[in-house]
């Protein structure tokens, strides 16, 4: 019965994709930090859930804010998974993935778009990001935008530090931010902070 169900589910996912019914396709992927939740719409990657975030809550949030047609469909996210694997192996320094920005608007979106242009292995300050987004004095709001980044890792908010080089914060926890910066060769083994 269970194999029966498995093949039926596999076919269901394929047919739903063909018919354009996968408003939100998601999967979980392994990473050196723990499991990631990856979710995409027809426009592109819309959400990356970090290991310390509750996947069920993220999916409920996607159902409310994007569409309740949320289905697990690992194959749809093959390319995202492939690029992330390469990134964690230190073999990819720039993601080539379509992104869906709909979960952030206004100033936050402008901050995140600016963050998305910070090259691999470099860092910027929250102040610089606020300026790039059009309001140099909104440093705190820029920090909030980083903290609410719906697509972490791919939109590299880990590359934003406090003026002076202190780490600041990270949604996935500071040890993860340190490890990512070490991976990119920005930080030595003993970081300043």
């Amino acid at each position, binding site marked *: *019965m269970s194999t*029966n*169900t498995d*093949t*039926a*589910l596999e*076919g*269901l996912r394929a*047919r*739903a994709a063909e*018919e354009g*019914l996968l*408003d*939100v396709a*998601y999967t979980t992927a392994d990473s050196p930090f723990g499991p990631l939740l990856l979710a995409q719409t027809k426009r592109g990657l819309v959400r990356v859930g970090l290991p310390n975030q509750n996947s069920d809550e993220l*999916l*409920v949030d*996607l*159902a*409310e804010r994007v*569409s*309740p*047609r*949320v*289905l*697990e469909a690992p194959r749809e996210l093959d390319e995202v998974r492939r690029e992330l694997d390469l990134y964690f192996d230190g073999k990819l320094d720039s993601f080539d993935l379509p992104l869906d920005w709909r979960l952030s608007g206004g100033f936050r979106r402008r901050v995140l778009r600016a963050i998305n242009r910070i090259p691999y292995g470099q860092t910027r300050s929250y102040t610089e990001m606020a300026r790039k987004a059009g309001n140099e004095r909104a440093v705190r709001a820029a920090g909030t935008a980083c903290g609410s980044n719906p697509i972490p890792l791919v939109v590299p908010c880990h590359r934003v530090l406090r003026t002076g080089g202190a780490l600041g914060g990270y949604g996935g926890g500071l040890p993860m931010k340190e490890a990512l910066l070490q991976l990119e060769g920005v930080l030595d083994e003993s970081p300043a902070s």
Partner: protein
Amino acid sequence: MTALPPFQTVLDEHSAAVMAILHGAVGRDGVEDCFQETFLAALRAYPKLEDARNLRGWLLTIAHRKAIDYHRARGRNPVPVAEVAEVAAENGIPERDEELWTAVGALPPKQRAAVALRYGSDLPHGEIAAALGCSPEAARRSLHEGLKRLRKELA
């Protein structure tokens, strides 16, 4: 209005029940296709669903319709009982469950669905009635007739 849960949650919670009633309603050959038809129809309609309180009854209603479509498309042929029986007999050990479901599959549509919903999916009479689109009394009667016939067949 209750917010709709992610469709995957609905699938996780109810796919076994839908599979069970379809197995009873259309037999092994049709179950996979009917299962997919059921959930595709559900997925299409899902964002416009206004009441998320009885998702199970909603899905079973769709499943029931898909089972009827299946039988209609095949010219109201009964489930291919002979085929299933042959497979079961091949290894010499008649599978009790399979034998039972085969007999269920040979019941007239309403009785078949009522039995499958009651014993395959463990639904109370009220929900069976909702899924079949009839009164609870009629559901009870179909179930009773179905069981009577099964007892005779399997005695």
